[in-house]
Structure formats: C-alpha cells, structure tokens
C-alpha cells in the first residue's frame, strides 16, 4: 500500500462559483461567465466538472482565455438534463466547479508550427480558448488557420468574433454551413469541403479538431488524405466523464482514460483502438 501523499485535500469537493453573465450564442448554445470564489487556474484544453448543487454535474471545457483568471467562460449546448437546467437558469446563482482536469493542448509542441484548427458546431468552444492562447503568444507560432463548420448560419457560435479573428495578422479563417439559407452568403457544405489547399507547410503543421464524433472522423480522414501524419492530428475525445480523475472508470478508451490521459489525444494514440468514433 502506497501512502506517500500526505494531503488531506478532498478531491471531490466542488468550489463555489457564481454565474455572472449568460450570453445567448445561438438558439441552443449559451456562454456562461463564471466567477469562482476561490482561485481557479486552467490550461487551455483542460476541462472542468460544472455542477448544479444537489441536482447534477457535467464536464465542459472552458471557452475563455486561460490567462484571464478572474472569470471562466463555458459555452454550453442544450443537449441533456444538466445543460437544459443551466440554459433555464438565471444570473447570480451558485454553481460548483471541480478541476481543472486532463492534460489540455500541448502548446509547447505547437510552437514554431502552422496550426490548423477545425471546429464543428459547439466544438468551437474549447477551440476559442486555444485561439486566445495562441493569439496571446502569436510570435511563437507560424500561422493559425481556422476552419469552422456549423449546421446553419443560425448555429454559428461566436458570430461577432469570427470576422474579428480573421482580420488578425497570421490568422486565416474560413467558415461554412451544412445547410445554406438566404441570410447566408458564405460557403455551403460540410467542414471537410473547406480543408482543401490549406495555406500551410505540411511538414511544420499540426491540426486540432473538435466537434461531434462523426465530424471528427471525416475531418481526420480528410486530413490524413491531405498528407497530415497521425501524430500531428489532435482530437478532443468526447466520453462520459464523471470524476475527471481517472478513478470512476467511465471514460475509458482502450488503455486510456479520456479524462486524465486526454481529453485531447493524437490520432496516432487512437488509431489502433476500437470504436473510437462511437
């Protein structure tokens, strides 16, 4: 029996945070600005467990700049029991947060490279945190190429921010929607259709993908087809994560736990495992 850790810290204890502001992004997606009552620091790509006290808890990856430590933004799609209650909630209520958990994005590995970021739907939320991290240290990277796809123009998150980002130096943004409508004058087609002729040097490029599993699958296949190596494709693996600590068992993928070993994995780590897109 190993008992070398003297800490009596309770790893399940949520810290209190208040919902300071709720921003409606799309009809089904809202951003919650949380103000933790104790210091809370995360690295981009790490996730938190957000709870409604006495009701339930769910994992989310913050969408805010990790360098901004007073508040944390979490951008949430109304998809299940907890998220629908969150969507119905008001400002100033107390929520619980635990974490941060997971390894996050390996920014050190990304330095000096072209970064292709491919987002689908609400998958742009964790990627926004990554974008802020890259923007804050843009000299360390060669180029940031964002390719974002949403179902319709109405489903685009951070609608105001996207054009602002595209004006930044060393940043290239292309957006598409699966289904066009008269209000939309941009690209129509799946996100895979805007991955041709990426303005990057494939020998010095990593791709970061976040979105629904089916989108990540086809984006990964497309990127491989384009010439990306499996070790240069970073995927956010969505699993049921209860504890966040590699103890509860739920998020196992082969020999890994999505929570503690991920949730970001390279395709190289995933490619020989079974049923990773399910």
């Amino acid at each position: 029996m190993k008992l070398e850790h003297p800490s009596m810290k309770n790893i399940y204890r949520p810290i209190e945070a208040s919902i300071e502001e709720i921003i409606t992004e799309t009809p089904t997606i809202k951003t919650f600005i949380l103000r933790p009552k104790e210091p809370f620091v995360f690295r981009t790509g790490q996730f938190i467990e957000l709870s409604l006290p006495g009701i339930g808890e769910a994992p989310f990856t913050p969408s805010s700049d990790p360098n901004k430590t007073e508040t944390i933004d979490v951008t949430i799609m109304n998809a299940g029991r907890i998220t629908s209650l969150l969507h119905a909630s008001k400002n100033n209520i107390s929520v619980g947060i635990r974490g941060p958990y997971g390894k996050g994005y390996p920014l050190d590995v990304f330095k000096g490279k072209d970064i292709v970021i491919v987002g689908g739907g609400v998958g742009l939320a964790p990627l926004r945190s990554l974008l802020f991290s890259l923007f804050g240290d843009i000299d360390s990277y060669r180029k940031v190429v964002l390719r974002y796809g949403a179902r319709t123009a109405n489903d685009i998150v951070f609608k105001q921010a996207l054009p602002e980002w595209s004006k930044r130096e060393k940043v290239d943004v292309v957006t598409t929607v699966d289904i066009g409508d008269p209000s939309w004058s941009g690209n129509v087609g799946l996100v895979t259709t805007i991955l041709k002729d990426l303005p990057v040097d494939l020998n010095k490029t990593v791709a970061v993908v976040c979105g629904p599993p089916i989108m990540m699958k086809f984006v990964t296949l497309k990127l491989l087809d384009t010439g990306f190596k499996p070790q240069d494709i970073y995927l956010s693996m969505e699993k049921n994560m209860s504890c966040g600590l590699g103890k509860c068992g739920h998020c196992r993928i082969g020999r890994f736990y999505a929570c503690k070993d991920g949730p970001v994995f390279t395709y190289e780590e995933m490619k020989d495992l079974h049923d990773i897109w399910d």
Partner: protein
Amino acid sequence: MVYYTESSQLNDFIHRLAKSYRIFYPAPKTNGAKEIDYSYVQCNAKEGFVFNPYRAVEPLKVFFTYTQEEVSEYFTPEPQQGPGKAIIFGVKNCDIVGHRIQDFVFLEGVDVDSGYRLKRENTILITSDCTEFKEVCHCLAWDIMPYPTKGFDLNLSPLTEGYLVEVGSPKAEALILEHKDCFAVAKEIQVSARKAKRESLVERLKKHLAPQHLVPKDSVQKLMKDGYQLDTWKQFMLTCVECGGCNFICDTCHCFLLGETKLGQINKKIRVWDSCLYANYARVAGGANPLKTRAARLRFRFTKKFDFFVDNLGVPACCGCGRCIEVCPGKIDIREVLKDLAKKLFATNDK
C-alpha cells in the same frame, strides 16, 4: 516474525481489541446453500471467533468504498472524517491481491482519494490461509496462492490446535507486543506443519482445476485483442440481465458515479458504485452511447480486466475468487468466456 496462539488466547485477543476497534469477521450463514457461505458481521464480544475456510461472500472493497456514500458537501471546506479504526478478520489472499486494484485506483494516479486513504490507514487486515475452497475458486489459474505472503498486517494459519500468526506490518507487531500474553514465538515444527497444510491444499485445488483447462494467465491480453470481434460476446450476453452483480461483488471492479443529493437545505455530493453492464454507463449528453449493446458492455468489462490493467498495472484484474460466477443470475462464467475465446482463436492448435 511468526507467533503461535491458542484458540482461546486468540478469542481473548479479539475481545480486548474490540474495546478500541470495530471488528469484523466472516460468519457462516445458515441459508441452506450447498457450500456454507461466510458473510462479514461485526464482532459481538460474547461470541467466539469463527474461522472461515475460504473467502467471504463480500469482496474486501466493501470496507473502503460503499455502495453509496457522501463524499463532499456544498460549499464547506469540511474535514474528511473516516468511520474510525477497524480490524477485519478472515480476509483471503484473493482479496489481498484483488484489492491491489482498488489501492491503485484510489491511492495512486493524478490524485489521492483522501477519504479512502483514511479508511485504509485506520484498518488492520488480518488475513488467513484457505483450508478449503469453493467450487468456483480458481486463484491458482492466476498464479495466486490460497494463502497470503504479503499485503496483510497479521496472517492466521490454523494448525490442528491453535493458529500460527505471521506479522506483516509494524503496526501489527506493535499490537502483538501490546498483548504478548496471548502469543508465543512459533516453534519450527509448527512452521513446518503450516507448510505441509498449505502444500496439501494447493495440491487439492490443482486437482480440482486441472479438468477445467483454464486459460493461462499470460494469454489473456491476447485473447482480448484478437478476440475483440468474436461472437463470444454476443453469445454470452444472451443471459445477461444487466444487474451489475458481477461488478459489485468483484474485488477489483471500482467504477463509480458521482451524484448529487439534498439533505434539508444542504446539498451533498455522493459517490455510488456503478456497473459497466448498465445500459447508460457510457452514455453522453445528447444520447450518444459508445456501449450501446450488452455484448459491447460485457466485452468492456473483460477488456478492462484483461487488457487495460495489464497495460496500466502489469497484471490482469481478476483474482480468481469466483464471486462473479456465483452471483450471476444468467450463469455467465468468467472462466468459460475466456475459454471460449481461446477455443475459437486457437482452434487450429487443438488436437
């Protein structure tokens, strides 16, 4: 150090300990089962100690994580409080080896579960040699002996009269010294007698297991990798009723779900045991479920034990206690699942 104690002295020892510890030991159940089952009870000072010849019904983990327990309160910096000092008798080597998985999960990794650690620190494990085995016992198949050689505080080996008491930890040595009138240093002839008894049981268990042709320990990871797509999983899941019994009764299964509850105005976070055989085990918000079928979930249980833990801890997470075989209303037998995979994969090598 090995000591000897008479049965009456052991009873004295236990009754004295009962003044400062909660004491548990497996007592025989009179439920008419073909094999007598032993189930943990809290020691009553009036009763004498009963020796259980084989493992108890319950896995050792029941003393360290509970089916449901409160793990935190919103929003107080509450101190962790354990249930106090306990001594558990009658733990067998399968439990000790299996419990290594629980220790790995809760004491190692990214963070230590301090509540678990407190219980572990406050608990003394008094193991004992098996003198019989159940039909389902198959520890030897995993190279686990039916007597412990490490991982215990004290180990009892019954002799014709009295017990040999082997000391496995400094805190147990201190306990012996404190009650030294109950113990004498063991004689060499007594230690030899223990060896003979152990060897005799191992021989009997070997004879019991030989006709079962169990799969070799070092083949299990290959069975999981190569047998992933076999129809074994579909075939064996047919009788699975998703009760989770196999998980809950398992010495090594550790999955849990964090949940919430309210007590008056106080919100609490609770931890409940979970089962990978439950339909919603891996379901995510929005309804996607990577483990949609019972076959996928049964396979998940096996790959966790025989692939994940081989990769992450170097050992399969099965201790051969056979509890899951006894508990399963669908008569799904872990030995038979492994044998079926081996039969199908290595069919060409059979005569």
